[in-house]
């Protein structure tokens, strides 16, 4: 049984559809990254899941129970917010203690003065502070417990927010871009820590981000959401190497995949002398041909391949990104080269563009992936034409 299932969630704001029937299953202990450009509805989905917003239709099932009528507080879903959302007037320790106090102490026991006189609350409070300390030790923030959020750095606040969410042992863990307010170095470091924490706690996690690198590097499975539709849910390598939709291919990968316009005719796709046989029947007309930059090679001075010209070279240390313009169609193709391949290249020079035909992907006019005869999603030794 899935830890969490979403079935056909729909939501619109004032006639604008934000979610167009999203369905998603999270298995126990799984880490799923929900990735998509800003405004694709991923944060809305998370808010609906947490019970902070309501879907127009659809079902949320947690552990076999329908959650739609359950209030946010009773869903036992914890969330880490992009802004951390720590209570500014409370210390880190008090912040982490809030969810435990709300759960374990009765309303009367929480009252400021009277509460401390009621029987039983002393033991509960001792238990809470023990759990808070334990959680803080795990996250290495035990020396910060007496500080207020205003006196902490971004990274420290982020840990306190994580601690507050994890301390009550939720059944589902939601994270809404928790790393986007950190600086670049810290972000990469924090990625590893979150994955490590998840592995240790084993709580199913839904992690929202707009950073495809973050999604690919952290998650067991990646859900790509664009324009309110869940386009693909698969393991990171499948998302990258075998995208189901042109938008997925475009969104994932840095630098972006090259998309050129090609022509489909009687089951074959043709582009500048390249011919690919399609497995399925497609109406004659334009299709898109996608090829990752690492499967594009350049031949200096156009000795072979499609004639083009280098517009710009970006040296990135371990690799060189070459932007080329094709002479015939005027389209731009990006090649990702290792430095020694780029030694002879200079901006402005004519080149021959070679593409690895086995790695080409064909997308239909509506963006759906079209399979090519003879090639599968698995990588092969590329042959260039």
């Amino acid at each position, binding site marked *: 049984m899935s830890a969490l299932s979403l079935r056909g969630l729909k939501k619109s704001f004032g006639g604008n559809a934000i979610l167009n029937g999203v369905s998603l299953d999270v298995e126990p202990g799984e880490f799923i990254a929900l990735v998509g450009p800003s405004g694709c509805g991923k944060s809305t989905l998370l808010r609906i899941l947490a019970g902070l917003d309501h879907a127009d239709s659809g079902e949320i099932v947690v552990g076999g129970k329908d959650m739609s009528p359950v209030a946010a*507080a009773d869903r036992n879903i914890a969330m880490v917010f992009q802004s951390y959302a720590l*209570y500014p007037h409370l210390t880190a320790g008090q912040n982490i203690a809030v969810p435990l106090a709300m759960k374990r102490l009765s309303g009367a026991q929480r009252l400021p003065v009277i509460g401390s006189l009621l029987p039983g609350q002393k033991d509960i409070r001792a238990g809470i502070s023990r759990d808070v300390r334990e959680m803080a030790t795990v996250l290495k923030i035990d020396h910060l417990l007496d500080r207020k959020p205003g006196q902490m750095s971004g990274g420290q606040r982020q840990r306190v927010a994580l601690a*507050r969410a994890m301390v009550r042992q939720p059944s589902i863990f939601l994270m809404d871009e928790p790393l986007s307010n950190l600086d670049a170095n810290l972000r990469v470091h924090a990625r590893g820590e979150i994955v490590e924490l998840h592995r240790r706690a084993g709580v199913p996690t839904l992690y929202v981000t707009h950073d495809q690198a973050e999604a690919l590097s952290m998650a067991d499975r990646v859900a790509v959401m664009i324009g309110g539709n869940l386009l693909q849910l698969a393991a990171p390598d499948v998302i990258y190497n075998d995208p189901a939709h042109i938008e997925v291919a475009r969104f994932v990968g840095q630098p972006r995949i090259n998309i050129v316009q090609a022509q489909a005719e009687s089951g074959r796709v043709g582009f500048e002398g390249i011919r690919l046989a399609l497995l399925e029947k497609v109406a004659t007309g334009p299709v898109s041909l996608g090829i990752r930059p690492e499967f594009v090679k350049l031949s200096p001075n156009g000795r072979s391949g499609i004639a083009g010209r280098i517009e710009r070279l970006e040296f990135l240390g371990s690799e060189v990104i070459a932007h080329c313009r094709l002479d015939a169609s005027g389209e731009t193709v990006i090649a990702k080269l290792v430095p020694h391949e780029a030694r002879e290249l200079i901006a402005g020079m004519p080149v021959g563009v070679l593409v690895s035909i086995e790695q080409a992907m064909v997308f239909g006019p509506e963006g759906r992936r079209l399979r090519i005869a003879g090639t599968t999603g698995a990588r092969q030794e590329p042959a260039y034409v």
Partner: protein
Amino acid sequence: MRSTAIPAGRIIRFGLLSLGALMILAPYIFMISTAGKTQSDIFTSSLSLLPQHFYFAENFAKALNKVPMATLLWNGVVVCGLIFFFQVAVAIPCAYAMAKLKFRAARLMMVLVMLGLLVPIHATALPLYVAFDRLSLLNSYTALVAPFTISVFAIFMFLQFFRAMPDDLLHAARLDGMSELGIVARVIVPNAWPAVTAFAIFSVVAHWNDLYWPLIVVSKQAYATPPLGLMYFRAAEAGDDYGALMAATLIITLPLVAAFLLAQKRFVEGITMTGLKG
């Protein structure tokens, strides 16, 4: 060499500001001076700021003996305190709901608040007076406090402040298991202190100095607020004893002046805050 010289523009600016300050301070300074003069000093034809005989002690003694000054000040504290307490107790939950919760009547409430801002107490004074009279509540703290317990100005001011509070904070509180009232008590109120202090300044200054409403509903000295007590003093006791009258006025304005000097920074913050957001 230029760096030590004060630019001419600055001198003019300071000059104008000092002149303005002097004009506003002059009556108060003159009041302090008069409080230290004898009757004959006050009525001499020459105008002098410094009293010829220092008569402060006598005037203050007279002011303290002839009116129940302690009662007046106590009434002022009770009335201002109660008004402020109820205003905040009503306005904070109300402004929170209007700023952060979605409900049908929110727009209508906003319109009502705006309308409320436009209606002065003077317009509703008569019906309120009649109502208190029918309820036999004239000459009571209730009559002094009740009409001001719902302050649309407070609602409006807190509304602006709460709108700027991040939604995520409230979401986090809801996920942590707080009810809406719990959120108000545990998250909103502790973080609303800047707005509350700013509003306290407006509320306390307005109601401490208010003469209009107490004059309508109070006719017994036991419930008189400081300005009203002062009026009785002038009418009944002092007659033309301006020295004593000024001494009494000085005593009554002293708490506000002291509060201002102690919390000067907050005053300015409060006024600029409403200036920016109101």
